[in-house]
């Protein structure tokens, strides 16, 4: 065999130290962009919200029960927008929480491997459907469908988009819950089944309690997504800030207001323009709080198996 002088050639190879030194610096700089994004969001929201409260009383914003941004004598009480959001979230939760958890239990505890392999991608497809498509589905199909049972239901209402929002967050809740359930070790199930417990008793008394923090975090994250949901409510809920609790009437959510203002011509520098940021800020605080609660639940109640 020929002598390839590999040792010599390696010894003569000049290594560039430059790349080794620059790469971490470049990657670190890229990483900083994610921090800058947060700073950008906070800066934008805070500065413009402060502007807004320079023009409109913060007391009115927090205490008034009327939101009427486009009137010549506008009133700026955030309450109807928050109530609108909550109506949607509650209806969404009623749809998504039991079905999401139920589906997760079925997939994790009952379904065969084959069923799981078929159903999970379908749920992923459901999760990947754009919200504007869900919105169109709500207004063109769900609302007329519901009206055939509930004649007093308005064209724009809380019920239809609420249900559709629930369907939108269902895959997320189901998939996160299933992750939590399948991380419960099998030995715990065997312990229960081995005593003659039925599958349902095992699930409800052993598996679900063991995974409760994961399930809780999944629900909170799902609801946070529902709070921030924009297109479904913009399309199907209407644009009437409404402080009644009636779910058959048109309403407006925080996100719906932002879309209404930005899709029209809100002149830069007007009260309405700045109110965007005050509403955005409120929305941001709500979702951030939900996300933090979810993270706290995961940390606080992390199960040790």
């Amino acid at each position, binding site marked *: 065999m020929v002598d390839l002088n*590999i040792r010599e050639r*390696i010894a003569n190879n000049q290594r560039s130290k430059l790349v080794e030194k620059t790469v971490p610096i470049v990657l670190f700089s890229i990483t900083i962009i994610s921090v800058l994004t947060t700073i950008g969001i906070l800066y934008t929201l805070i500065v413009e919200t402060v502007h807004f409260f320079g023009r409109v009383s913060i007391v009115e914003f927090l205490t008034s029960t009327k939101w009427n941004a486009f009137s010549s004598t506008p009133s700026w009480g955030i309450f109807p927008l928050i109530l609108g959001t909550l109506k949607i979230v509650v209806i969404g939760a009623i749809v998504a929480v039991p079905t999401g958890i139920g589906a997760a239990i079925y997939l994790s505890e009952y379904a065969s491997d084959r069923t799981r392999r078929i159903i999970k991608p379908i749920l992923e497809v459901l999760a990947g459907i754009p919200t504007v498509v869900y919105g169109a589905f709500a207004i063109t199909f769900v609302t007329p469908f519901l009206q055939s049972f509930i004649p007093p239901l308005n064209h724009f209402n809380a019920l239809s988009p609420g249900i559709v929002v629930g369907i939108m967050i269902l895959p997320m809740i189901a998939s996160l819950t299933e992750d939590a359930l399948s991380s419960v070790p099998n030995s715990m199930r065997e312990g229960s089944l081995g005593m003659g417990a039925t599958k349902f008793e095992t699930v409800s008394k052993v598996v679900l309690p063991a995974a409760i923090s994961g399930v809780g975090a999944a629900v909170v994250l799902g609801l946070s997504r529902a709070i921030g949901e924009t297109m479904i409510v913009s399309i199907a809920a209407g644009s009437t800030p409404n402080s009644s609790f009636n779910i058959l009437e048109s309403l407006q959510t925080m996100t719906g207001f932002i879309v209404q203002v930005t899709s029209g011509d809100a002149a830069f520098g007007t009260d309405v323009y700045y109110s965007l940021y005050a509403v955005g800020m409120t929305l941001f605080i709500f979702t951030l709080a939900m996300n933090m609660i979810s993270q706290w639940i995961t940390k606080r109640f992390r199960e040790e198996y």
Partner: protein
Amino acid sequence: MIMTKEKTSAIHIDNKNLNHSPMEMQNKEIFTSKNFNLWYGDNHALKNINLSFHENEISAIIGPSGCGKSTYIKSLNRMVELVPIVRTEGEILYRDTNILDKNMTVEELRTKVGMVFQKPNPFPKSIYDNVAYGPRIHGIKDKKTLDQVVEKSLRQAAIWDEVKDRLNDNAYGLSGGQQQRICIARTLAVEPDIVLMDEPTSALDPISTIKIEDLMQELKKEYSIIIVTHNMQQAARVSDKTAFFYQGNVIEYNDTNIIFENPHDKRTEDYVTGRFG
């Protein structure tokens, strides 16, 4: 308790040095540890190690789990530093250079001191790319040289005939024993000075183990080999010298036949006769 143990071990090494100085004249020293100590955080894992390994020999390190033998072999190419809490003291000389020196380029050291790991760990690449990896990262790019290096290394690792027709297949398609020989070929491709083997056959079946042991005897002609093993028969079969590690100390270091047939220390005897470990 620990103090006395350290003392006895130190005495034994002195004995050994006296007894076997003629043998060390034959082959040049390649690695010498002088009062080498290592801590994982507060855990004093290696205590005052004084050892010398020689060219063209196979040196085995044996001892029960947790005795520090793996830690020690990983100190020789400074792979042990991948654990962030490690601290060392003393010297390890590789051909008269202290490798623990801050100015040591670890990449250069690891090129000269190759390593084969406990479990076969080929890259998720083709067999060819696995073996050509070393030369490539060290700047050898021309196809002709690489072809020759790959063939030479695979022949040295006694696996050329098994894989020559499927060099472009993923290395993960091979059996465990074949994968380990690919890893050996990959290590040999940069023509290292020494090959460190950290329990190279512990994950393999008996037939693959024998193949690798035979291979080591071949490789000894060109390379120096230091092998960590918890399999005492393997140490007895393949090595020229054997060091017995126990609780972070070198208890005894001697010709392999002496370690196994006529050990000086009671603990060595207990271990090699299977009374513990």
